[in-house]
């Protein structure tokens, strides 16, 4: 069943993927109570040794792995082992799930009610369900859904319950535990809780990884976690976190299980419940602490229409097949397997490459509604545009998106005008039509100070951007190539690639781009070289495919019909280019000695506010903390900034020349040349 699909070439004819089935339809016609109480007999992993959650804990606490670390910590701290073992017990208590069918039934009932109120439909690809069912029996399964909403994991369990599939255990952030009741409910529906950061805490790490591995080895339940680590507030996929992926692959590397199937799952919301919250959060309005009463207040949202949800269960991927020829498993032969060891180079490399491919799979299988095309166009026309023109451009963009393999939920026979008008209706919170022009809606419409007005415009823009972001992955690589072509000194493919590579390096925290091109060991293997050019080759392929460019000998030549395509594509990235430049400028002009990371976000934000107000810049994305953090990471990665530790304080030290070079390159002020690159 599971295969190496992660390596499959993009299917050029991605018109129709699997058929989706609306699971709410049955709920609307039949009793929710009976549904919640129905007989539930999922198929299980063939090698499973049945055990209770309490038994799991015992296994973990008695494991050699944990004993080893307990002894180690005891030696290091001088604390007695039983005290440390006791600590381990406490950690595990705090962490462990207590999956109970009765809780699932409770959720099956209440969520049925809620979902029916909130959503028009919840559509699931049935073939994916069948594949999953098969995979679950064969090998331990890891479910990797995309993460856009708190709803994600309840929704996942709900769907699995509906299809009589084994209920997963889910890695969740500790913040949920702030809400006593809800936290415990989630625990009883299979959530286990992990601290957000536990840096050097060996004991915590040991308990945690052993707990996850024990569940995996025993085939206790499918293990579910979010590769992105946290909900993406921008609706762009986040660069994957590797910790848990490493943990779930380890038992395979060490031969403790024959194989592990990982299943990328794409959950696409037509409207995310948290929509309005996210934009504010990105703008620095503090995130409300998760509290039970807060969630209850959220009942208000029950009265709104959130459209449809599409859940696409991707092809299960066999870790064994992926690792074939990439991981030398005999490297684990010489040390007892219970002794914790840093993952080897090849393992790290493999895990990060796999994570990247899995997130891209999630992206590719996101179902896109016409509205995201509209949002992408509106983002390039923030002052509003003629509605007829919008319709025309939407139809045009639909063609381009299709050529690039987008998974569009837009029936062939539905005319653009209709798609546009119904999208506008559903998103009336965000857009309005006034005198034939479509405009972003600012709330509240009248504002007192210019800052407040700016803030309101920014909320609208970032909300709209979150929809554009959903389709960004489709255009990303060609768009980077389009920008690179503008920036490159010549149209020679080499030169364009040079610019492309710089952009890719700059934006590798911002977007899902192929990681690890630069080798750690200095040995450039064939696989790495392939990876180095993978994104670029894909961009060229797509641009040629849609007829925007031709590659003649060594040159990339723009065709006549390619011009609007390329200009639209570079326009799509413009806010990011500008945003990064604002950050660069901030570091050149304002950042003073002794700036800490903590001070950075508010400081750069107020700098951006000034720039926008004084320079008439339209780049609201520069206000987004997400972009600001990504830009910071990029500057650090590229050595334009350094972290300096003075006593206990970590401050940022700026290399102004390097920052300037980068800023100019992003502004296309100087063509990027190799020496410039080298200096960075």
């Amino acid at each position, binding site marked *: 069943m599971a295969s190496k699909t992660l390596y499959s070439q993009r299917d050029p004819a991605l018109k129709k993927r699997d058929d989706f089935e609306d699971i709410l339809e049955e709920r609307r016609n039949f009793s929710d109570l009976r549904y919640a109480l129905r007989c539930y007999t999922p198929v299980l992993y063939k*090698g499973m040794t049945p055990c209770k959650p309490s038994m799991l804990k015992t296994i973990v606490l008695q494991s050699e792995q944990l004993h080893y670390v307990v002894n180690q910590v005891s030696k290091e701290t001088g604390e007695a082992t039983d005290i440390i073992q006791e600590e381990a017990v406490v950690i595990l208590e705090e962490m462990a799930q207590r999956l109970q069918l009765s809780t699932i039934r409770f959720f099956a009932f209440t969520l049925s009610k809620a979902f029916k109120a909130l959503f028009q439909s919840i559509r699931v690809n049935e073939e994916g369900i069948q594949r999953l069912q098969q995979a679950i029996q064969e090998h331990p399964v890891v479910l990797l859904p995309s993460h856009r909403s708190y709803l994600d994991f309840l929704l996942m369990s709900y769907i699995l319950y509906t299809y009589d599939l084994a209920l997963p255990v889910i890695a969740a952030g500790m913040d949920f535990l702030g809400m006593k009741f809800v936290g415990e409910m989630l625990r009883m529906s299979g959530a286990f809780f992990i601290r957000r950061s536990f840096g050097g805490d060996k004991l915590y790490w040991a308990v945690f990884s052993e707990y996850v591995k024990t569940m995996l080895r025993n085939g206790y339940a499918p293990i579910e976690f979010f590769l992105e680590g946290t909900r993406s507030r921008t609706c762009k996929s986040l660069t994957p976190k590797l910790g848990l992926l490493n943990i779930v692959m380890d038992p395979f590397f*060490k*031969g*403790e299980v*024959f194989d592990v199937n990982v299943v990328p799952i794409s959950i696409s919301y037509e409207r995310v419940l948290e929509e309005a919250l996210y934009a504010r959060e990105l703008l620095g309005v503090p995130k409300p602490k998760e509290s039970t009463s807060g969630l209850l207040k959220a009942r208000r949202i029950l009265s709104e229409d959130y459209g449809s949800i599409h859940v696409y269960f991707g092809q299960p991927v066999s870790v064994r097949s992926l690792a074939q020829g990439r991981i*030398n*498993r*005999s490297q*684990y*032969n010489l040390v*007892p*397997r219970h002794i914790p060891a840093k993952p080897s180079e090849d393992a790290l490399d493999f895990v990060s490459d796999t994570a990247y491919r899995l997130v891209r799979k999630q992206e590719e299988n996101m179902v896109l509604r016409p509205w995201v095309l509209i949002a992408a166009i509106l983002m390039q026309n923030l002052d509003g545009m003629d509605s007829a023109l919008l319709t025309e451009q939407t139809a045009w963009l639909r063609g381009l998106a299709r050529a690039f393999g987008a998974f569009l939920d837009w029936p062939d026979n539905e005319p653009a005008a209709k798609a546009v008008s119904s999208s506008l209706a559903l998103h009336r919170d965000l857009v309005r039509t006034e005198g034939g022009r479509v405009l972003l809606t600012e709330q509240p419409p009248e504002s007192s100070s210019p800052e407040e007005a700016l803030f309101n415009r920014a909320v609208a823009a970032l909300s709209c951007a979150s929809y554009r972001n959903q389709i960004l992955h489709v255009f990303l690589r060609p768009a980077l190539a389009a920008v690179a072509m503008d920036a490159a000194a010549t149209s020679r493919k080499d030169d364009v690639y040079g610019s492309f590579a710089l952009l890719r390096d700059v934006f590798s925290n911002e977007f899902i781009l192929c990681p690890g091109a630069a080798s750690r060991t200095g040995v450039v293997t064939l696989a790495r070289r392939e990876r180095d050019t993978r994104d670029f080759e894909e961009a060229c392929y797509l641009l040629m495919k849609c007829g925007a460019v031709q590659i003649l000998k060594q040159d990339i030549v723009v065709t006549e019909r390619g011009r609007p395509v390329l200009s639209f594509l570079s326009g799509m990235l413009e806010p990011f280019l500008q945003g990064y430049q604002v950050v660069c400028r901030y570091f050149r002009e304002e950042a003073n000695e002794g700036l800490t990371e903590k001070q950075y976000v508010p400081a750069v934000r107020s700098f951006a506010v000034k720039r926008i107000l004084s320079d008439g810049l339209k780049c609201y994305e520069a206000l987004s903390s997400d972009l600001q953090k990504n830009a910071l990471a990029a500057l650090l990665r590229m050595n334009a900034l350094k972290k300096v530790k003075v006593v206990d304080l970590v401050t940022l030290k700026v290399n102004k020349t390097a920052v300037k070079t980068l800023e100019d390159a992003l502004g296309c002020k100087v063509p990027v040349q190799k020496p410039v690159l080298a200096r960075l």
Partner: protein
Amino acid sequence: MASNYNSAERQRIAQQRLKIIAGHLQKDEDGEPTRIFANDCKAEATDRHSSSTSTMPKRRQEVMKWNGWGYSDSRFLFNKKGQAEFTGKRYRLSGMILPSLKDWFEGTFGASLQHKTPAATSLSSSAVQPPSLNEDFVQDLKATGIPYSHEAEDRVFRAHGHCLHEIFALREGKFGRVPDMVVWPNCHDAVVKIVELASKHNVCLIPYGGGTSVSSALECPQEETRSIVSVDTSQMNRILWIDEKNLTAHVEAGIVGQELERALNESGYCTGHEPDSMEFSSLGGWVATRASGMKKNIYGNIEDLVVHIRMVTPRGVIEKSCQGPRMSTGPDIHHFILGSEGTLGVVTEVTMKIRPVPEYQKYGSVVFPNFEQGVACLREVARQRCAPASIRLMDNAQFQFGHALKPQVSSIFTSFLDGLKNIYITKFKGFDPHRLCVATLLFEGNRERVLQHEKQVYDIAATFGGLAAGEDNGQRGYMLTFVIAYLRDLGMDYYVIGESFETSVPWDRVLDLCRNVKERIVRECKDKGVQFPPLSTCRVTQTYDAGACVYFYFAFNYRGLADPVHVYEQVEHAAREEILANGGSLSHHHGVGKLRKQWMQESISSVGLGMLKSVKDYVDPDNIFGNRNLLSSRNQHRTAARAGVPVSPQ
């Protein structure tokens, strides 16, 4: 005198012991057994006759199959009624009907008695390449009087071991490169002459012992252009002396296991070295492959048993100057010889440890609820260092297979069956018949101690949920050892091919390795288009302080496959990769031969390989012993070793 009493007692025990072995083998005992000789060459002709029954005839094909396993008179077949039957008179199972085998066979492999794949009936000499003889060598050899032959049948017989692909080809009547000539030296000096002449005339020599190799070790290298001479050691089979003070025996290396034991038993002794192939494999072969016997827990493996080795090499004779029980004289030169697989010279004489025949033997068996518990029990037995002479743990599939070999009538079998039935009903009710597994045990020694030992082992077993399942069950398991090898030929008559292979692995990885390798086999078969799920099963056959030896059996129905042997080899290759990836060794006792040499570098590092290579280069610079086992072809290696870079394995 006390010693008189002792030897009388020993004689008595020896008689008893002889009966046991004879019972297993049921060979006619009227032939004159191997005698003990003075240390000079056998007189030609005269003695030859008298010991003919116990010496393998030069024309082996007269008693053994030329294209299958074992004695010509013993084979499995499905009779007219469709019942499986084992022919001949040699074994306990001989002449018996095995009523359940057919259902098991058809059910397990999806095979059918309707679909036969009979072997070529006789060897057609014309299909064999004519010998390429080195006339000068032949001339000089003739002068020595050492017997030789270049008849096709003799040459073909020595061109193979018992790997699947070797037997498969024979059955199809296909012969690749075969030796051009066979010589039969009858003593050390004869070997010295042969090696001298071979060096002088640049002839390639391949030592041949019992021909039971399962590593392609006996296969003639395709690329060999010189004349190839097979040195058959079977006529060097005398026990030259027995030293009762030191408990050693000095034996010619061509002697085969069953003869060695038989002869020693007559004097009240045994070596205790009992590889499953002991009916045919030779002392020299054991030394050359680092063989392991079933009862190594008491007697040790071959490297523990040898005290002194004499080997003839192109550089001369290598041996130590004394028989001290242990020496610190630099790296032990025996260890260059042990496992040399015929690449350095011919082992001609060996001094081996011997032991008085044990007073008492007892079989036993334990049933465990599942394989995991069984392995845990074996591990504990090893931890407490109380392993019986032999302890083997079969997985569920092998347990089922064992059942399929139940004969119709026989006193010991019926009693066992009834016993088992009873035990089933009373004791094993809680056991899932699709998960349970069985360990068979063999205890040896002083009666009282055996009983004590037995109790200790059963007590340990009980703590892992193991229930004693009777002596007969155990005895039957060991008895089947010798006949199981005949079964592959039966499978091959009906589209089923298979093989066993082995590894050694640390305790903590035994279960993971077993599971993963078995599953890998199933997967690979599926991927390669095998229509029916294969038989993929394993057993733990030896325990050590730090790990165990694991045996895999793997067989499948090849109907519908264009090139079954190739598929088979791909699957075995994948299985070996899986073994290595799971911390298993390249081999516990079968050796490397040519079949596994691609993994040698990975297994022992390129420096390690370079060491072996440099020994080879010194001992045999002209590659007279050119069977090309162990080390990859010369140049490849040299470069790799010189560069000192590990070449990543494919």
